[in-house]
């Protein structure tokens, strides 16, 4: 399951996408909207994507994790407004053993932040700002 969605992410659905009776470890990572950035109160986030590039790039990351760790990977990123405390991205990874699960999960979120064309705007009580991820 690789997708961009406009409303709330069905976290349990992303988890189920990596069901496999041969897996002993499953990790679900949620990137969640925080209520502050460098001391400034954030009231919501807004995400925007280039879908025709973002979805294939997420698929490539999942395929890379599959090739490298034998992991099944599901990635769903949200677009539009995201409330504080709600996930903007959910990544589920399943593997036979846990060491590979942690490595593959970390790889997927790190690569997503570097490579997938998605942008984030922080909304404050009195304004807003586009926020880039720190470089790799």
């Amino acid at each position, binding site marked *: 399951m690789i997708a961009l969605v406009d409303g709330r992410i069905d976290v349990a659905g992303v988890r189920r996408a990596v069901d496999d009776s041969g897996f002993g470890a499953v990790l679900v990572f949620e990137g969640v909207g925080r209520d502050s950035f460098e001391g400034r109160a954030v009231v919501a986030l807004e995400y*925007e994507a*280039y879908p025709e590039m973002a979805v294939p790039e997420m698929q490539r990351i999942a395929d890379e994790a599959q090739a490298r760790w034998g992991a099944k990977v599901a990635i769903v*990123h949200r677009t539009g407004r995201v409330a504080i405390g709600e996930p903007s*991205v959910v990544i589920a990874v399943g593997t036979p053993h846990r060491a590979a699960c942690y490595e593959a999960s970390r790889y997927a979120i790190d690569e*997503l*932040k*570097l490579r997938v*064309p998605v*942008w984030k*705007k922080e909304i404050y009580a009195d304004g807003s700002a586009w926020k880039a991820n720190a470089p790799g």
Partner: protein
Amino acid sequence: MKVRVLYFANLRERRGVAEEELEIEPGTTLAALYASLFPAGPDGRIPVAYTRNRAVSPGSTPIEPGDEVSFLPPLGGG
């Protein structure tokens, strides 16, 4: 010749549209089109990755008729 240009995030806000069809000179490169659309301001230019037909491409790439072109500002996904 015609080219389809997509804008995202702060570039979309500055341009005021998410996409448009433009008429450009044959041989125009990605970097030249970006520079002409977004003149440097007091803070310089937003650094971008150039894309042509949904693939990241060097700024020196000439645009072909009918291409879909975009300029990706620094990413913020996750």
